[in-house]
């Protein structure tokens, strides 16, 4: 174990996987000088064949990944901000997510796409989306939501070693945060939720960037005598329905926290799963704490108003805890 920054953990995973398998390549806009920090030093270690600065052409970056993977590479594409996933969406939604089925299982696509999501830095609407709900709906791509440095490293390794297209969503506001990361080679399986905190009164399901405020909220709740369980799905596709349903049954009171816009969010889907599969055990309405159906404003105070924080989470949880 050692304390490492989230961005550093991602960087380590990239270095280790590229050393482990010469077929792994990384490309994107300004990955060489690492505009997002996470690809730092790769160029010196692995050279310009395997680390490539690309022109600005997201539609081609995503489509190229499909062809390069089909032809034998393990492709890591850095998309920078998750809004740019929309720019490269055609090849994601119409090719990457469908080619394997359409070819009767011939296409094998070991692709990892890294993108940073979320607000908090006054980057405004075109650089602050949490653009994963649209990916979750596609069906054909995995979606990993690392909340901690350890998960970031372990999930990224699983993504790169895997044989399916995976979106690795970086929590933009978490890049600088520290956390304990196991030493040596380790991976974290997809589709396994983590119970980050035990509690008997209310269950908080927190996605990616929302784990931290959820844990803060749990502390606040404790102060007022409410024991909150905090569960992190870790991947949205595949989704650990079993664990989420079990967590819902345990307390019967659930809040789902998601930095995505509310409508058709991951929070909505999880709530839908629970009212279907845990109905008999629900004691209160399943609440969603999400970004309202607006795009992210620029002004810091307006941004704060939109992004779920510990207070909003705690308030919502105590509402249903006493309902």
């Amino acid at each position, binding site marked *: 174990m050692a304390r490492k920054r989230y961005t550093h953990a991602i960087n380590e995973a990239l270095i280790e996987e590229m050393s482990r398998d010469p077929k792994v390549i990384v490309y994107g806009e300004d990955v060489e000088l690492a505009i997002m920090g996470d690809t730092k030093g790769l160029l010196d270690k692995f050279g310009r064949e395997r680390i490539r600065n690309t022109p600005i052409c997201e539609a081609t970056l995503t*489509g190229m990944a499909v062809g390069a993977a089909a032809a034998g590479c393990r492709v890591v594409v850095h998309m920078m901000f998750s809004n740019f996933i929309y720019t490269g969406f055609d090849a994601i939604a119409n090719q990457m997510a469908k080619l394997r089925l359409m070819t009767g299982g011939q296409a094998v696509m070991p692709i990892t796409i890294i993108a940073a999501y979320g607000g908090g830095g006054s980057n405004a609407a075109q650089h602050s989306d949490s653009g994963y709900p649209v990916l979750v709906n596609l069906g054909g791509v995995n979606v990993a939501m690392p909340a901690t440095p350890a998960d970031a490293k372990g999930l990224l390794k699983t993504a790169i070693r895997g044989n399916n297209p995976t979106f690795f969503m970086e929590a933009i506001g978490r890049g600088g945060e520290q956390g304990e990361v196991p030493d040596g080679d380790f991976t974290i399986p997809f589709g396994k939720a983590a119970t980050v905190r035990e509690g008997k009164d209310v269950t908080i399901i927190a996605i990616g960037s929302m784990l931290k405020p959820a844990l803060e909220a749990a502390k606040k709740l404790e102060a007022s005598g409410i024991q909150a369980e905090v569960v992190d799905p870790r991947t949205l596709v595949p989704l650990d329905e079993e664990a989420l349903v079990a967590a819902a049954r345990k307390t019967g009171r659930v809040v789902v926290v998601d930095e995505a816009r509310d409508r058709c969010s991951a929070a909505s889907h999880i709530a839908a799963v629970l009212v279907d599969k845990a109905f008999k055990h629900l004691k209160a309405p399943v609440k969603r704490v999400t970004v309202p159906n607006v795009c992210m404003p620029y002004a810091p105070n307006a941004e704060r108003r939109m992004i779920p924080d510990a207070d909003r989470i705690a308030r919502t949880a105590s509402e249903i805890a006493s309902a």
Partner: protein
Amino acid sequence: MATPEPSSEQLLALYERMLLIRRMEERLRADAAAGNLPGAVHLYIGQEAIATGVCARLRETDMITSTHRGHGHFLAKGGDPQAMMAEIWGKRTGICKGMGGSMHVADFSKGILGANGIVGGGFAIATGAALASKLTHDERIAVAFFGDGAANQGVFMESLNVSSLWKLPLVLVCEHNQFSEFTPSADITSGEIADRARAFKIPTSVVDGNDVVAVWQAAGEAVERARRGEGPSFIEAKTYRIQGHLEAEDLFLQGGKYREKAEIEEWRKRDPVERVRQRLLSSGASEEKLKAIDARIGATVERAVEFAQASEVADPELAFDLMFVGQKA
């Protein structure tokens, strides 16, 4: 350039492959009209020389991307007629297990990365395949077949830029058949498509796409350039779509009209299959030999249809295993 002519054996082989494509599609046409096919088919009739002339220059390990009009590319690159026919009939013995159909015929084992229902969808895939070939240092190259309409998608320019910058082993083959669905290309295409490739410093050639020898020669140079590691080439093959955009086009047109019968007749006179046939005869091939080829192909087509008809329909439950590798959908 002193590009060699194909030998008479090579010419015969080209003829046989073109004829296979033609007969397979004539049969598909009949079965579409008879309502035997579940989905739409976009026929390649009149364009056979392009896929055939290009793929004759490729190795089995080379890779191609194709279009919604992809039967010709599939067969030219060595795809199995029976597996293709069964696919279009929606059977589990199809090359894609009945999950893809006409617009998605693919055989990765032969480098056929798939027909594609997204116009322009093949550019980036072929570019990526070429990138992988370069990195794995084998001598594979990639070829992207696409239509004149697809050349208006921005991804075309993006692939020109990336492949030229990185000197990727890529050949871009534009099949200019004059139309994009019901729209004449001239209405939606500004300037010469070849000039777009030239703007990226990519070697370019424009050939008669109904002359398999001309295509074969241009492709030979482009393929060799790619194999030598000298980067991408662009070929524009001028041709004409004889059939409708898709079979049963009239249902969509509802009396609307976008071209003259006379124009179609004019182009029939330049039928690429007939042209090789004449060339073979005049270069001394015997009627018998050609008859034998016709017969062989007739039999192949029959077997393909029988195989398709005799096969079981697709297995729906299989879809849940085909979304991911080792992971249920």
